[in-house]
């Protein structure tokens, strides 16, 4: 007996299929969108996702402006993009670098070198030529690269679960052009193709070269994701083994380094005292038993001066005697002082 689906039980008689009339009633044509908004130029691109339902052009609106070099994280990571990059906000969720290349090629912009998306981690800063000159000690440099390679093995990335990533809402992009001229050309093209241009006809995603294979969205992508959720066991085992082995090796190396440093005095002749950062393992049952035995022995050896009642009485008597003698001493001292005071 099959379960009835919600399609059978739900009454959708009050609804109709999304049709061209509805689309045209809610559509947002470029004429209704300002060319400039908050300093960003609007760039409409046509979307064909609803083309089957309506022949009316449907637009998605990108916002573009020259990239602000004050945005330090990106500039720090990419110090050479000053003056040749555009900031693009409200990018479509399926944007890739190929989409932007095709877009700017189509509208007559410059050639794009790369695109930096805000939801992707920034690459580590590449060392400039000046910085390279500063590194004179080649041995030190080699050591550094070796450490980096170890780190990589230990923190190898997890396998990607998606063949194509979609961007989270609010993601922005910085399109880096090959040079400043290309960037200026692109910005000019954006201005020319903004909402006041009646001949907007570029479809988002069109013109991407055949060599640039972008996986399909939709059902296939989710099926592929389901496949990727279950990696090959052998591969997974190797991945974990390598990773944990690298981690253990690193810990061992660090421990050895510490020990070595503990035995070697520095230039001033001091020895660094280093405590182990790792917690001590809990004592085993044997250790506990041994410790208990020791305590027991110690207890046997011990002397209890107040164990018996007579001992307690003796102690009290002694304390009373001490107090009495102290009192007598004090009295004597007082008397002596008085006597000395009365003497001429």
């Amino acid at each position, binding site marked *: 007996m099959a379960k009835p689906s*919600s399609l059978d039980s739900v009454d959708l008689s009050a609804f109709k299929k999304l049709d061209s009339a509805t689309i045209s009633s809610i559509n947002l044509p470029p004429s209704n969108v300002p060319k400039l908004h908050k300093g960003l130029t609007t760039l409409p691109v046509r979307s064909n*996702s609803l083309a089957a339902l309506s022949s009316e052009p449907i637009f998605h609106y990108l916002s573009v402006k020259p990239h602000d070099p004050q945005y330090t994280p990106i500039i720090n990571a990419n110090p050479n993009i000053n003056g040749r990059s555009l900031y693009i906000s*409200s990018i479509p*969720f399926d944007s890739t670098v190929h989409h932007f290349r095709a877009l700017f090629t189509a509208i007559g912009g410059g050639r794009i070198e790369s695109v930096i998306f805000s939801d992707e981690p920034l690459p580590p800063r590449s060392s400039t030529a000046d910085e390279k000159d500063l590194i004179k000690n080649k041995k030190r440099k080699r050591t550094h690269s070796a450490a980096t390679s170890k780190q990589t093995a230990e923190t190898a990335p997890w396998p990607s679960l998606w063949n194509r990533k979609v961007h989270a809402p609010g993601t922005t992009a910085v399109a880096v052009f090959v040079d400043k001229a290309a960037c200026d050309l692109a910005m000019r093209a954006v201005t020319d193709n903004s909402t006041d241009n009646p001949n907007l006809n570029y479809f988002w995603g069109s013109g991407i070269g055949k060599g640039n294979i972008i996986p399909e969205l939709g*059902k296939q992508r*989710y099926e592929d994701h389901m496949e990727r*959720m279950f990696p090959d066991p052998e591969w997974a085992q190797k991945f*974990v083994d390598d990773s944990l082995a690298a*981690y253990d090796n690193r810990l061992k190396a660090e421990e050895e380094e510490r020990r070595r440093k503990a035995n070697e005095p520095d230039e001033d002749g001091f020895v660094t005292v280093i405590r182990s950062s790792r917690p001590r393992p809990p004592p085993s049952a044997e250790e506990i038993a041994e410790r208990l035995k020791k305590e027991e022995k110690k207890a046997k050896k011990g002397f209890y001066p107040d164990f018996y009642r007579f001992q307690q009485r003796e102690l009290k008597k002694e304390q009373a005697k001490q107090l009495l003698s102290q009192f007598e001493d004090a009295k004597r001292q007082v008397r002596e002082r008085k006597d000395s005071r009365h003497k001429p």
Partner: protein
Amino acid sequence: MLSEIQSNPKKRKLPDPSDSSDAPSLTSPTSQQRFQADVAGFVKLQKCGTKEVAQVTKIAENLKQALIGAEGLKFASIQDANAAFRARGVHIPYPECGDDIREVVVSLTPPSRVELGWSLRHGIIRKSEHGVINVDLIVQIPSATFLPKDYLEYLYLRKRILYLSYLVLALKNANPPFDCSYASDFIDGDELRPIVLVDCSHAKCMIRLIPAVSVDLFPIDKLSPTACRADRKTGTPTPMYNSSLIDDAYHLDNLDTLQKYTTLREEFKGALVLGTAWLSCLGFSAHLLDGGFGEREWALLQSHVIETTVNESAVASRYASSSGPFQLFKSVLNLIANTTFPIATDTPTLHRKNTQHNILFKMSRWSFRTLKDHSLAVISFDKLGLSLRAQFQRIFQNQPYTIADLSMSFPVDSMHIIGKLPTAVARRWNIKHLINEYYYDMFAKGLGNRYKTMTFSAPKSSPRELEGILGCETENDGVYNLKLFITLDERNCARILDYGPDVGNTAKTADFRGFWEGKAELRRFKDGRVMETVKWDSASSPTEQILSFLCQKLASPFQTQDPPTFYGCVSDIHSVSPPPLQPAVDLYGAAVSEFKTVADTIRQLKDFPLGFRKISGLSPGLSSTSVDPPFPCSRYLETPLEGELELESSSMWPVDPEQRRRSEFGLLLKLRAELDATGNFIMTHVGIAASLGFDNPGFFLDILTKRQYYFRFRLKNTLEVVPRVIAPALDMRYENPAQILHLQTSVVQKCHQHQYFAPSIRILKKWFRSHHLASFFNEGILELFVAIGFSPYSPFAIPASTYCGFRRIMAYLSHWDWRNMPLEIEVLRYFPDGERTRILREFDAYRSISRNNEACLSVVVAGENGEMAWIRHDVPRLVAIRMTQLARETHTQLTNISTPFSAVFHPDMTFFDFVIVLEQEPSLYEANRKYTNITTRQRKFGSLPLNERFIAELKAQIEEYVLLFPSLDTLIVGGLWKPARELDVLVKQPHQRRPADSRTGNLMYNKTAIFGLIMELGRGLVDGIRVPR
């Protein structure tokens, strides 16, 4: 120490007011004062305003003067009098007119005494639902109108009717005339005693003209319930007739008594308002068909309590001696709870002190038992240790009275049933009342100890206009629908075997067989006894089967009548949640047993580096609370049953979180390898699941057993238990999530001891899913919603049916004002007054810091050892409002039992702005059934997991603009556009919305772009988008 302090005055401390429990607080009112204020406020709310009362009093006084000043009339016979009144347009229908009427002179003179009703005298008139004020005007008929033997053979009643006609005529002829209309009705539905209703619609009041006689008119001692005073040819006792006469005789006497005690005892009025409010909540009224216990009877019981307390140490003295309306209210309940039937009459009896007047003479056996049961429930609060204020709040404030476990309606042919009534009953009057009694006897016998209370509801006759009705006699409702509301005994209602007498007891055996007819069967038990038994089908509810059988038996031999209609019966529940291939219990049990087998296999692994502290099931299917029972499935096609593995602690875990994660992954791989080596499972696989952020992947181990049960285990991550700030305003108070979880689990475990808890959860989940709300609520919060209906600290019994449990939850949800108060779960213990005050304070503090666009549903749980835990559940405000709105609608529909039960689960799709319809793939189980020669493509994944991922991703993409409401099977997703806010438009996403239009200032989303996104992201999954026509 004390002597030391006394001897040394310097050491004496000043008493600290905060230390002393009985010291009055200078700033805040005491609990007692708050309680008195609560009661006074409630009483005030229930009463009519003084202006309205004054207006009605004025009208009643005018009527009184008109009646006193009426002219006398004299007729040669009763027939002459009838004819004369008819000729003048006054006719009060009465079926006995014309029967055996003697030729006696009838002399009608003005009333000897006319009194305003007791409520009118003291201005305590309770507000009615329809806004019409009902008051009484009691008119004493002069004793000279009657002869000494007129109490026999309805003579008194005939003259009483003539006198009523005389009164109406007097009012009609009054000068100046009254702007009123007149109708005839029966006093409290008692067909023996007509009254006249004076409808003053301009003043929104209805005045009842109630005839009364002097106490010494008839010999009261000759009107005992066992005597036959009417229809003496039959010799049948006429208890109702006799009691009616006594009641008429004591009308004015009762009035005087009530007036006396109202003056003497200050709390009398307040207690009466409380009592009538309580009775009204339970559906009781003075009408015979409503139980025959109303405001007047309650007031008489109050006076009885006070009378007996003054001189005797009666049962009620415990409360009556103390002052306060609530205490007096409880004393009356105590009196009811301790009243028993006398064996001789088998009718509720409680005589007023030193009189023959039985206060409870109108009550039925069923109504008395129900009233007593409710009284006992309230009285039992004392045993639980609840304070008076807590008791008051539980009885009168925010407590919806939804108590019936089973509601049914069945047609009754009164003419047919009259023939079946016992011969010892006079069958001429109040037929519906008698039929109710008869049905009660039959049902009570049939159900045995399965039921606690029964309440009958028959249609009442409406008042009749006095003019223009000639020759029309009393209504004869041949066939009508009788409604029955039953509260069941939770422990006994599911019993499928009824035991009868031993086979040796011939008389009882014959009686048993006569009652159960073909259902009775002899059964031999292991101990050698041979007994009569009746066995019911276990697939359905035994109670429903018994009631159906008895209805059918009572309707025979006329089989044309419709069968009884049950509301919320087992088949209704199944119609909402289709039963699986096997009985549901077996499927749940099979899944749990399979889970245990897997858990045992895991525990027995020897080469695994760490031991397992606990292996627990997390899925609702493993605790019998999933909407659909778990059943065997193929890999990935259905949602797996989730479990959790808790490992023994170890100090060897890496400190680095990323390395710890990798170690966990490694452990799962090791576990998989070990389980694979056992050969007990078809498939074991370790998977990686990432949230949308990709940052912290989680891991799981999938196991497919040989019985095709699909389990998914995750490692319990102890590092996730991080203290959470709940209210920075409250001195940075932290709550321990482990404690919250522990309390939540304890509450649910305690409730699981009730057999209808799990089905109630299932049906509530089904309701949330049907209305596309389930994705906003987790399992835990829904279970707590259900737990509130199973609290032992409420005046209602624990639900003994899924229908009752669900109805009660709906009542709570519909009354819950989540903006201003938390939901208090009092299952393990109750919250004392002080703690409740603190709860409200904490709630206010938290509310002040909560966000505006989200509603925080706060649930506070009481722990056994005095602890308390807050559970906060944030949902979009729109969703919370929708939940309350739907709960109200559902509660109304369930209250009106003519609505089919399944109707409350039909979603109203017009609520949504658009609907996304996903592709429906052929079902796994019917893919090849219809066309056997077609080979369908072997699917690796079911549509459910794919759709779930798509909807999750879609939600993340468009959550700023749209609220998505997916259905249970993810095939339909409702969408609501969120209200646009300027802040978002300017700062965040100018691309998705049209910026502010300079002409209109309106904001609008780029809806086409969002629709395009839906189609693009769900390519191959989305069938289409629907928009309103």
